[in-house]
């Protein structure tokens, strides 16, 4: 099994989620994140005092999939997340040792 983590622009989340659902992904987790990469932050002004805001809001999507599906799921995410502008984010894949479905106690791919 693999854990796919995608950091994407927040406004792309809905389309990614729909595309993953169409692909057959049964569940995922979305959380708010902030960070920076090549995209630079912005400046805010409060009564003339200027503050650089370096961390930008992003969405983090986490999906657990079977090994064979990993490449395809990554492709789906990248296709939907891409705007071509700086700050589109990153996607990475890591191996997962085990997964347990809390309700039933099922383990491994059955728990996905």
């Amino acid at each position, binding site marked *: 099994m693999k854990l796919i983590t995608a950091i994407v622009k927040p406004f792309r989340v809905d389309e990614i989620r729909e595309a993953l659902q169409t692909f057959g992904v049964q569940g995922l987790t979305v959380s708010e994140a902030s960070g920076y990469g090549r995209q630079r932050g912005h400046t*805010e*002004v*409060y*009564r*003339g*005092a*200027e*503050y650089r*805001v370096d961390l930008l809001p992003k969405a983090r999507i986490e999906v657990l999939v079977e090994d064979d599906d990993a490449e395809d799921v990554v492709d789906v995410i990248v296709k939907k997340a891409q705007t071509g502008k700086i700050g589109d984010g990153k996607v990475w894949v890591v191996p997962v040792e085990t997964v347990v479905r809390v309700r039933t106690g099922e383990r491994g791919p059955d728990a996905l």
Partner: protein
Amino acid sequence: MNGADTAFVLISAALVMLMTPGLAFFYGGMVRVKSALNMLMMSFISLGIVTVLWVLFGYSLAFGDDVGAGLLGDLGHIGFKGIGPETLTGGKEGIPVFAFALFQLMFAVITPALMSGALADRAKFSAWALFITLWVSVVYFPVAHWVWQADGWLFKLKVIDFAGGTAVHINAGIGALAAVLVVGKRIGFKKDPMRPHSLPLVMLGTGLLWFGWFGFNAGSALAANGAAANMAMNTQVATGAAMLGWLAYERIRHGAFTTLGAASGAVAGLVAITPSGAAVNAFGALLIGVVAGAVCSWAVGLKFKLGFDDSLDVVGVHLVGGVIGTLLVGLLATGGVGGATQLGRQAVGAFSVMAYSFTVSWLLAKLVDKTIGFRAAEDDEISGIDQAFHAETAYDHTGVGAATRTAAPALHRPPGTPEQAGPEQAAAPKNKKVDA
């Protein structure tokens, strides 16, 4: 008794009362989350403290018979002695003294609250309470007597201060500066970003202040008449113009029309028009507004250059705006009053209040600091004084309610029952000694 005037002054008193919670929101939104409640409380507590002092001796010191030289009232009216429902100001066409005293009380409440913005995030709450208790007693009540009591020395000098440019705004602005010099800078001043945590709250507070200020300014006519109407109009005109003045400066200098700028500009205009009353015409009000907006917008940057941490710009807005309004009315007053002579009188009013208030405020702040300590402990300041002094936090940011922050059964223990060490106790927030 004049019924119309009485009704107007009573309603104005209620309007001015609303300004103090309005100020609390105005300031509260500007601080960081960790001290938002403390900022609200610094204003709100004034409604309690000053009200009690007012009954005990404040009204008498400010508006009692002059003890000599126009410096202070006597103690003839302590506990409102000699004042009943039938006691009127002036002659048979006056208003009840209770209406006047209630109206003036609201001014005494908001003036020390104005200073709180300068000490955001770092003052011990008990020290603040002690400081404003001393400050209204020794600074505000006498200065109100100078300016508004018929025997007060600035009143007799014919200084125009319709609604409190000197007694309220210059007084609070310079008092705040003195207190800041004693208390010192916030940890991280000029280094850490100290962004306002809620500009919508700031906007709400500004709206309440603007609304209440009609009572503050027009109500100061103490009569439902043309002067009150004129003052109400001037209030609106100067405030609108000042908002535009601030935004214009900001757009040119910093490239954006900020929400905080609009709110700050409006307050600067309200401050600057306060001394004028109906003494200026609409064009005078426009000019006062624009100048106050633009100059205050520039003045709020001074603290970074000069290195005093007037956190929420009490000096930049109230002192500078108050001085601008107090001096400009000397030039712009209609009816042949404005000119060099009147400007001179206005300057005497402004600078005498500044000198007295700065000196005494500094001494009082030092006194508080040397006795109980003005400043919060360093770790409390860093982790947030809301928890340290109020045992609360402003917002619950946990998505699932209380699941990760246990409500503490230990805190609801009936008095006298011993503490029990157990899992519940361990989960409860540490009930540490509150040094507030």
